């Protein structure tokens, strides 16, 4: 059971392979971000170079999936055919303290009309879409 209706655009790794380790990781229930082998800086979203020390030698680092809400929004107006008649939903931007406070975006599971406290602790929940043409797994968030 997915949080949003089926039919929204499905994520696909980029042709150049930059984000493939991330999407491969979510399929296995692992949340990974980039980490520079040279200076240790965490980086998200993915890029080919470390923004801190300009090394190309980046690794993928598994993180705990514990985070806190940095910002949020509640879309009501459906802009995609798959959302027609669905009603409001919540999007949260979550910062990950154990990965240099990089931020990840996802939906906040639960009542779509709930109050959303900025600063609240959340944890990652993997949402597999096994029946998709190219199966993928999204990362959602729930309050802890």
């Amino acid at each position, binding site marked *: 059971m997915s949080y949003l209706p089926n039919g929204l*655009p499905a994520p696909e790794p980029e042709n150049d392979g930059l984000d493939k380790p991330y999407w491969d990781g979510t399929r296995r229930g692992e949340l990974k971000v980039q980490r520079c082998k040279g200076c240790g800086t965490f980086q998200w979203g993915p890029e080919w170079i470390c923004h801190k020390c300009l090394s190309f030698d980046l690794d993928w680092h598994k993180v705990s999936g514990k985070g806190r809400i940095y910002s949020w929004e509640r879309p009501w107006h459906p802009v995609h055919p798959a959302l027609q008649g669905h009603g409001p939903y919540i999007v949260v931007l979550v910062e990950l303290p154990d990965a240099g406070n990089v931020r990840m975006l996802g939906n906040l599971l639960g009542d779509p009309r709930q109050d959303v406290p900025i600063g609240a602790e959340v944890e990652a929940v993997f949402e597999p879409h096994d029946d998709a043409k190219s199966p993928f797994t999204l990362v959602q968030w729930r309050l802890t």
Partner: protein
Amino acid sequence: MSKRTLRGQVAVIGIGETTYYKHGKSPVSEFKLALQAILAACKDAGIDPRKIDGFASYSNDRNDPSRLAAALGLPALRFSNMNWGGGGGGGSAAMGNAAAAVACGIADCVVVFRALAQGQFQRFGAAPPGGSATGEAALNAPYGVMSPAQRYAMRAMRFLHENRIADSAQRAIALASYHHAQSNPRAVMHGRPLTAEAYDASRWIVEPWRLFDCCMENDGAAALIVVPAERARDFGQKPAYLLGSAQGSEYRNAARGHNAPLYATSSFTTVAPQLYDMAGVKPADVDVVQSYENFTGGVLMSLVEHGFFKAEEANDFLKPENLLAPSGKLPLNTSGGNLAECYMHGLELQVEAVRQLRGQSTSQVPGAEVSMVISGPMVTPVSSMILGTEATL
């Protein structure tokens, strides 16, 4: 070596617009709209269209300068320029790029233009149908983040949270645009006044933005003509001189997946100081401001970052009476702007800024000498510009 600057080197001597339509309602093609606006600007200036030798635009405008030059029978095309980036962030940058070309002698008469007929193409506020998302979109679209409002609401939400901004602050920005549109017969929302009660009762598009916090989508075109300052007085209209222009964004603004280190920003924190430095004016010298409303929260942050008030003063400053011509502290969006005149992707704001200096606005600020435009908050690159009368040179 003297300071490198565009200050006082070029002037806008012609402005032109088509009729502004609701989206999808233009009776003519987008390219014809572009031509109509350009010819209207030439007529306003009293200049032969064959004197045009360059074009500047932004946001991937579809109307190619070479086709325009062929259609208009221009003797020579000398400058064709597109500012990278989406949204309306390039509106003032296109003016700056045109000015740079004219000031450096690359071209003599450059048209800055934007034309949109969204009925003939994909709308901005509706996601394209399609099966997959890659790159930045893969981190957004599967979670229901597709439209510009959805893309930027979390920037504003963080700013509102950090600075304890009241609902009335965003509302005042919407009310100011609608108020000014009521005196402007060109405005799509002319004759459709907005009350605070109607604003409060309007539906959410995406919290924290209601329907009236969001720009319209429209069809139309606008154009401005830029010439060297030494020729500015040869034409029929009072020249509007460019005092300053700046574009860009701060450190890692475009870090993917909403990872800009300074997230709660309209992207002007480094741009605005550069603008004031070139123009040689301070916020207190600015008589009237046109500030691009994609969403009211973007205007709020833009005004803070351009130094008109501090974030903690926003609730007190952003009251309708402070934002209205002729006598408000900071008359804002005096034609009705993107919310209520026309979403001409912000270029109607440049046109209105010129009108204020000529004394031709339908919501005129008496004696306006310094006129600012802020383009496309929250995207990157953004841009802003300051125009002045001859007295400011």
